[in-house]
């Protein structure tokens, strides 16, 4: 079977249409967030989830509604027919379909190198660590922090480390890990803000919609639009957990100070031992990370009105309906 025949098969059409549908959904969703003036990260994330959830279902659903949808007659009347581009040869020698498949393969490689391998390494590493650290509840500021938080709280462990580290593990044995360096550097209200943020992550990780989105994202590992959108969803998750932490502590300033303290103290990377390109890449990554942190801090300080936080529920329904209707005529 050659490439053209594959792209005309059910699997090939699924691959092509899920890519085009996700691209259209991403454009509509991105513009819709501005149009409906969405500021609530939870609603914003629901918009972005459309980019992952809709394209995986749209092709089989549309084909089930109308099996003739893949016919030439339907394609001729369609809003956009991807096969016109895939059959095109650039400069009379370079088929667009080859470029398309190349983009998918590169995306698959990025997924493997940046997500699958680090995930496997992390899983293996965490299994090897027998003792996660000492329980931190006896520490004065941790005890104070936990006492001020409502609801079920996970176990908190202390790691002997001077670096500023705070992280959590999810699942049945969820726990929060704090480094001794961080605990010494933060005030009790800041420790509480950090713990509240991690508790929010643990509580959010149990939501079936997010688990499903993650699984769908894994299935769409060849789709570059889904890869980028999933990263934006993960960034949005930080904002959601910030809001949850503030609702638990009632102190946005403490969380903003914690973020500044934890992430604003990254040391300059030394480039003497590494190659210059690696040093530049690291510096860029660090710069973009700092920008994201600055945005989070800004958002915490802005405190939008309750009316603004509720905006966009109707917009989500209209956006989802419009995306489905447009994508139906995109083959």
């Amino acid at each position, binding site marked *: 079977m050659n490439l053209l025949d594959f792209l005309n098969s059910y699997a090939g059409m699924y691959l092509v249409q899920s890519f085009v549908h996700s691209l259209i959904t991403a454009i509509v969703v991105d513009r819709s967030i501005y*149009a409906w003036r969405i500021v609530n990260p939870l609603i914003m994330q629901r918009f972005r989830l459309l980019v992952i959830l809709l394209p995986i279902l749209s092709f089989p659903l549309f084909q089930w509604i109308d099996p003739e949808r893949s016919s*030439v*007659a339907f394609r001729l009347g369609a*809003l956009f027919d991807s096969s016109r581009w895939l059959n095109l040869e650039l400069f009379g020698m370079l088929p667009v379909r080859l470029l398309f498949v190349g983009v998918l393969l590169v995306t698959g490689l990025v997924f493997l190198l940046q997500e699958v391998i680090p995930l496997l390494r992390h899983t293996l590493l965490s299994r090897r660590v027998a003792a996660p650290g000492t329980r931190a509840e006896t520490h004065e500021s941790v005890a104070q922090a936990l006492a001020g938080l409502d609801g079920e709280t996970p176990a908190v462990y202390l790691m002997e480390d001077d670096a500023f580290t705070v992280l959590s593990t999810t699942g049945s044995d969820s726990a929060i890990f704090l480094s001794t360096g961080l605990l010494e550097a933060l005030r009790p209200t800041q420790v509480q803000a950090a713990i509240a943020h991690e508790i929010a992550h643990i509580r959010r990780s149990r939501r079936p919609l997010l688990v499903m989105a993650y699984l769908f994202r894994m299935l769409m590992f060849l789709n570059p639009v889904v890869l980028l959108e999933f990263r934006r969803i993960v960034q949005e998750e930080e904002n959601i957990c910030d809001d949850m932490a503030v609702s638990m502590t009632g102190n946005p300033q403490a969380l903003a100070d914690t973020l500044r303290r934890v992430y604003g103290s990254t040391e300059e990377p030394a480039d003497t031992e590494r190659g210059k390109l690696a040093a530049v890449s690291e510096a860029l990554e660090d710069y973009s990370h700092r920008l994201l942190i600055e945005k989070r801090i800004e958002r915490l300080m802005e405190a939008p009105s309750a009316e603004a936080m509720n905006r966009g529920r109707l917009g989500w329904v209209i956006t989802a309906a419009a995306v489905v209707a447009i994508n139906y005529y995109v083959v």
Partner: protein
Amino acid sequence: MRESLRGLLSFAAIVLVLLAALKLLNWAPTALDPGGMREYPSLSAATAALQVEDLLVPSYFPEQVRWPPRSILAQSKPYPVLAVAYAGTRRDGVVLHTTQAASAEFALESSIALTTVREIVPYDLNGRQATLAVGLCSDGEPCSRLTWQQGRYWMKIEMVSSPFELIRIAESMRP
């Protein structure tokens, strides 16, 4: 309320821009490469535009088939295809549909489809092995279909009629 209306108008503008962009992107490949599937006003226009000389056209038309064709779809890339639909003189709708494609994978669903197949028999068409299917269309009218391979092309003719006229049309098909 005012906020929702403002959002709705902005969103409508976004959708309109997107629809226009999709239409433009759909048209662009035909401008860059005219060999893609499109509709032509006449058979001569299709053969001239596609620069394919061995397209087969029937020279015999029974009385119930109207000339010129109602629609002509053709492409030269990725492989040549010519699909012609003819309307009837005594009834509305397409009564004859011919498809010639240089790929066995090509499938163009015509408006004439045998929903009930009563008989499928091999048929000798000018020395070529063809397959004749006889049955009923979705509206209960007698319909027939003839398929065969001729050179690099896969041929298919479907007609709202008994197989006799269909065979005469097939036998008259020439470049």
